[in-house]
């Protein structure tokens, strides 16, 4: 386990799409360091032959008939949209213009 650096946190914040100020990055780095240290023992707890559990009560092949069910209308789907045009969500530029 390596310690978590300020650069790591800045990178993670970028991946998670959360803007952070310098002060926030400093605080978060310190807090995450303590938390990561406290939970590091988890990686030593289980040997390689222990299978992973992804779901507590695993169900397989949960299917339904491939028929159209009840869906939201376009109006309902758009009623909470920050911005929309006709029957679509409107967003700012997808690509950076620079």
């Amino acid at each position: 386990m390596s310690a978590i650096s300020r650069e790591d946190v800045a990178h993670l914040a970028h991946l998670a799409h959360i803007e952070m100020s310098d002060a926030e990055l400093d605080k978060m780095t310190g807090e995450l360091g303590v938390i990561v240290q406290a939970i590091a023992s988890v990686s030593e707890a289980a040997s390689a032959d222990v299978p992973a559990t992804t779901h507590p009560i695993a169900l397989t092949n949960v299917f339904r008939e491939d028929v159209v069910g009840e869906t939201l209308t376009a109006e309902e789907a758009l009623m909470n949209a920050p911005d929309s045009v006709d029957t679509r969500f409107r967003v700012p530029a997808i690509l950076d213009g620079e």
Partner: protein
Amino acid sequence: MNEIIRLSATELAAKLRAGEITSVAAVQAHLDRIAEVDGGEHGVHAFLHVNTEEALAVAAEVDAIRAAGGAEAEALHPFAGVPIAIKDLIVTKGQPTTAASKMLEGWMSPYDATVIEKIRAAKLPMLGKTNLDEFAMGSSTEHSAYGATRNPWDLNRIPGGSGGGSAAAVAAFEAPLALGTDTGGSIRQPGAVTGTVGVKPTYGGVSRYGAIAMASSLDQIGPVTRTVLDSAYLHELIGGHDAADSTSLNEPVPALIAAAETGASGDMTGVRVGVIKELQGEGYEAGVQARFDESLEALRAAGAEIVEVSCPNFKYALGAYYLISTSEVSSNLAKFDGVRFGTRVLPTEGPLTIERVMGATRAAGFGEEVKRRIILGTYALSAGYYDAYYGSAQKVRTLIQRDFEAAFEHADVLISPTCPTVAFELGSKVDDPLAMYLNDIATIPANMAGIPGITIPGGLSEGLPVGIQFLAPAREDARLYRAGAALEKLLEDKWGGRLLDQAPELSAATGGVA
């Protein structure tokens, strides 16, 4: 205090059916109580939204059906007309759903959660939406973007979390019933510190459709009430298969009401109760341990066979929980990006691209604890760390399940204190995430294994409630109600009434304790 609000839900339902009280009067009594104790600077602040008009309309409809009699009245659910409060993580048409986050301020769900559809069908008037830690992340309700809820036993203390609003509402007699969600203890820990009953059902036993997902493999909706029998009724009402939730168990709901009625005799003859060695002793307050030991004595005297069991891998449970839950959080909360719903914040400078809008939106919309968990989860899932963190945590999950399997070979139910301490003071742990996480040490293993758990009031330590937790194997929720109702009866006989009878009166004038 109006006597209607002190009735249990089962008692109130019986009076409604007998025509002694109308549902409108019952709903109005609770609305009056909310107006009296919930607001103001020092109020309980259990509610984020009060649903006055709709609640009274549903109540009037139930009263009209009962007054008319006939087949429609006969077909009413036994709890029709009994009001209920809803944790504001569960989506409702016609009422705002915020998850106690700025991100969803003003958001109105276009659909109802499955549990809400069932509550509407049974005609339980919804009093409103209750406070929580933002997106259910926390153990004190202090991480709500709309201010903390206060513990009715001591308004300077936390009501637990994340479902502090639902537990406080029930404890303060603002509602006889409430819904909660439990990912690592968010129903049971608030239940323990407010002297109320809370149940986390078997994973898949209650549909999660319409509960805003925190950690999908751990989340479960469940009842929050003042008595074990009330929880059994509510659990049977909301439980059962739902095709809209692919993790829902396609099995009938167990006979929970019958189990609670059996338990209410107080007889525990032949029931093997396993004491989990690792969930007591060091780290547990002396007063909590003392009430726990007394509960064991009461069960033993009632015929239970008390055995000790060991779950050696529980020491890894907290760490593994924070890796798995935050990993799922980082994925589940990616949808809050200012595109389709919720808040959108534009960056104050620089080019206006969608990526920068997302960054600004999530910076402004999420609180500190949510950001902390998203970043931790992103870390646990990132290249180079995945095997060591997320992968290892999933293996620990297997080890915890094996610990439970071994324990249940020797016991029908397991028992522990629900949490290591009584309610702490507001503000005392909010800046120390690790200390906050330790509150859930006894509740987390059940979520990791998918098994059901209940907390019931176990008495007081320094004037504050202590919770006793029972755990049962997956799908054996009925055992919780049998054992929980028995211990409830044994302890109430000793106290000469319910634990909440000993709670201080909340006064209207000061919004504080009289």
